[in-house]
């Protein structure tokens, strides 16, 4: 008779599970009460070096949970005040605003907030921007000169650009840009623009990387993205391999919005001091230089130079907008949906 191996397997499985559940504090299981828990909506490859620097500088160990900004924000909202997280580091002011609205953030001390220009932080002091990201138009340089590229996103609805523009309507940065358009120009203008873009055969992609791919390969001639995707692409593949070029829009166009990646301390955290120190560290010179050099974003601490080739932050006519207002995503989403662009 064959040994009842399945029974053995089942018993072993149960035993293993019980053991993992009870012995949850061992290393393999990750969660460690003695560490600062960071939810990072920014990729490990970009953020881990900064965290290593922080651990070295302060001696505080950090346990990081990586995910997408929106997914982690949704998770934080689902977790509520029971969340194990101490700090949230996200790459969209809209998500930060949503967490403020859900009353999940504790206010930050003024000396932390004051490092950064008030355009780049929450009005009520619940989150602060750490790095800036400009909206740009990527264009295929084999098909177009920079002078051919329109100076405003509002020109993209003309017949000339029919079927030639790529967007990522599901992407938080695109939605923040549409929200900015609503805040700046009113809901009617934003709605008309979305409808006109849809009628003009705009091509939809799942994310900015795919938009840039499409511009690079000439599938579309123009793409609305954030500036650093191009700089990262060039860093990975070399400038010769990238056909796409960037245009920073002049004037107070919503297409030149500067959004931020930023951080806030969770109100439910029992390690608030260390969490605040982490946010402070993100605004320090070391971390700010890192963002400038490695992630090709704009450092928000005054006096830290941006990466080479990037027009200075002050030179971009970013529209005057309170980034906290970018949390009103629902109406934006409805408009994008009604225009048939989701």
């Amino acid at each position, binding site marked *: 008779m064959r040994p009842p191996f399945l029974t053995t397997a089942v018993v072993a499985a149960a035993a293993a599970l019980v053991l993992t559940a009870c012995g949850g504090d061992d290393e*393999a299981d990750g969660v460690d009460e003695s560490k600062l828990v960071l939810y990072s909506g920014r990729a490990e490859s970009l953020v881990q070096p900064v965290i290593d620097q922080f651990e070295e500088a302060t001696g505080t160990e950090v346990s990081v949970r990586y995910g997408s900004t929106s997914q982690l924000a949704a998770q934080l909202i*689902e977790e509520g005040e029971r969340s194990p997280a101490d700090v949230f580091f996200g790459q969209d002011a809209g998500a930060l605003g949503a967490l403020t609205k859900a009353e999940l953030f504790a206010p930050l001390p003024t000396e932390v907030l004051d490092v950064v220009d008030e355009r780049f932080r929450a009005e009520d002091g619940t989150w602060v921007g750490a790095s800036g990201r400009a909206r740009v138009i990527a264009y295929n340089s084999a098909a177009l000169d920079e002078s051919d590229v329109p100076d405003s996103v509002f020109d993209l609805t003309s017949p000339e650009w029919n079927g030639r523009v790529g967007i990522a309507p599901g992407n938080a940065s695109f939605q923040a840009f549409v929200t900015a358009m609503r805040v700046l120009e009113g809901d009617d203008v934003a709605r008309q623009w979305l409808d006109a873009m849809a009628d003009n055969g705009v091509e939809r*992609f799942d994310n900015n990387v795919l938009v840039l791919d499409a511009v690079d390969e000439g599938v579309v001639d123009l793409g609305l993205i954030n500036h650093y995707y191009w700089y990262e692409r060039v860093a990975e593949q070399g400038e010769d391999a990238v056909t796409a070029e960037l245009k920073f829009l002049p004037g107070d166009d919503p297409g030149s919005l500067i959004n931020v990646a930023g951080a806030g301390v969770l109100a439910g955290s029992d390690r608030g001091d260390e969490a605040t120190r982490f946010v402070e560290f993100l605004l320090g010179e070391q971390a700010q230089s890192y963002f400038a050099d490695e992630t090709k974003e704009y450092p928000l601490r005054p006096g830290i130079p941006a990466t080479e080739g990037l027009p200075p932050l002050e030179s971009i006519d970013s529209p005057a907008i309170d980034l906290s207002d970018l949390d009103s995503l629902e109406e934006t989403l409805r408009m994008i949906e009604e225009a048939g662009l989701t």
Partner: protein
Amino acid sequence: MVALPADPIDADPARASGESPGGARRHKRPPAVLVVPALVAAAIAVLPLAYLVVRSLDRGPVELFEILWRDRTLRLTMRSLSLTAAVTALSLVVGVTLAWLTTRTTLPGRTGWAVVAALPLAVPSYVAAYVWIAAFPRLDPFLGSVLVLTLCCYPYVLLPVAAMLHRADPALEEVARSLGRGQWQVFATVTLRQVRPAAAAGALLVALYTMSDFGVPAILRLDVLTRDIFISYRSSFDGTRPAALGLVLVALTLVIVWGEGRSRGRAAQARIGSGAARRHQPIVLSRWASVAALGWLCAVAGLALGVPIVSLAYWIARGSSAGLDLGALGSAAASTVSVAALGALLTTALAVPVGVLAARYRTSGVRLLEQASYAGHALPGLVVALSLVFFGVRYAQPIYQRTPLLVLAYAVLFLPAAVGAVRASVSQAPPVLEEMARSLGRSPGRVLRDVTLPLAGPGVAAGAALVFLTVMKELPATLLLRPTGMETLATRLWANTEVGSYAAAAPYGALLILLAALPTFLLGYRRRSTTLRTGPVSRLDRAEVAT
């Protein structure tokens, strides 16, 4: 020796034949030793449903009605349905033809082809979608999704159909041939009917996978329910709309599961038992037929395996930024294998009581239990994960973001595959042995341990292997529920593609495919080796099934 183990996702003769071996015990009450754990399994499987109901009613029934009562909801539903229909139909064509070619013909190298044909199961569908869109940026969203999903899913049909073709009674075909039917007529009138229940079971898994898959439509930009659910979550941070659409998905799944049950029911009348286990006389392919068959196999294998492998190799070779971090790769592989193993074990353990009940006691209560175990499979991993976040953080804080809760999520997601395997293999084991053991005074629990499970063991283990490989590829639930700091191959792959570092992502994708290929290889290979072993128990088995 048990000579004829069932396949993981097998259609079982017991349900297919009019008088099933379980029939004798149809009126007996199922023992508590099975019912209680089965109830636990079903309760776990319907947790996400409870969450969806709670969330979708967040803002009251009026808001729920308004969300559902839109043109867009109908459009998304229709598109999800047409995608599912197209992928299922194509997977049936590909799966059945490949199964037939590799089991019943004189195709050159068919043993090797049988293994190769199953291997696409190892390719995660989101990886396939990524490489296709990277290679062909102008790929049509609908046709592209149909293509990619078919290439990833057809093995779900291939495996059970091939097993059935091995096992089916050759006598029927011989009779048909002796009555003057030609080869193709026999194939169309007899063979296809014999494989129908197996094909239906495989088609069900394909349909459920397609319906709940998020990665492929998201990457290829096809507007379906899952994509809308995901986009709503990440742009509005509001659970009402996605929960409402999740309920629509569940409703569609119920229709599909019900339809599959119906198609099995009708097929039943066409069968008169499995008959004797003899080898089939292989159909001799002419030279041109062989060339055409090989062309077809090469085309499928090239598209399903060649394209992803070549693309990954290209990205590995092209990237200059990708310094390969062997330590990270190794630890990701180790956590992938360990959570997948735990996932497979727990899923199989929960599936055993449900599967045994489903095989032996066809009461309406049992049928309900079995259907309940399918609930999680219909939902995108993200929804299942969020529901476990919701319940975990409130009622199971000690295991929240720890391995046990993650493993539980895998069980919710993949229970159906394991339940199917248990049900199929148990119903092929003769119940007379269990009855004998009972009459000799063994308790129902001991009968389960000493008789039923050892007999069904190999088939159940194959089911566990299928779950193991599916868990390795799982992404959304792993992202939300893994212990903080733990990374698997899938999460590393995702993190790198998210920032556009395809070159850095490629080694993780390649290793994932390689690791997943091992259990897939066993699944494909096992059915080759089982046909030749026909021991005494199998004759008893056959005799029992035939009566």
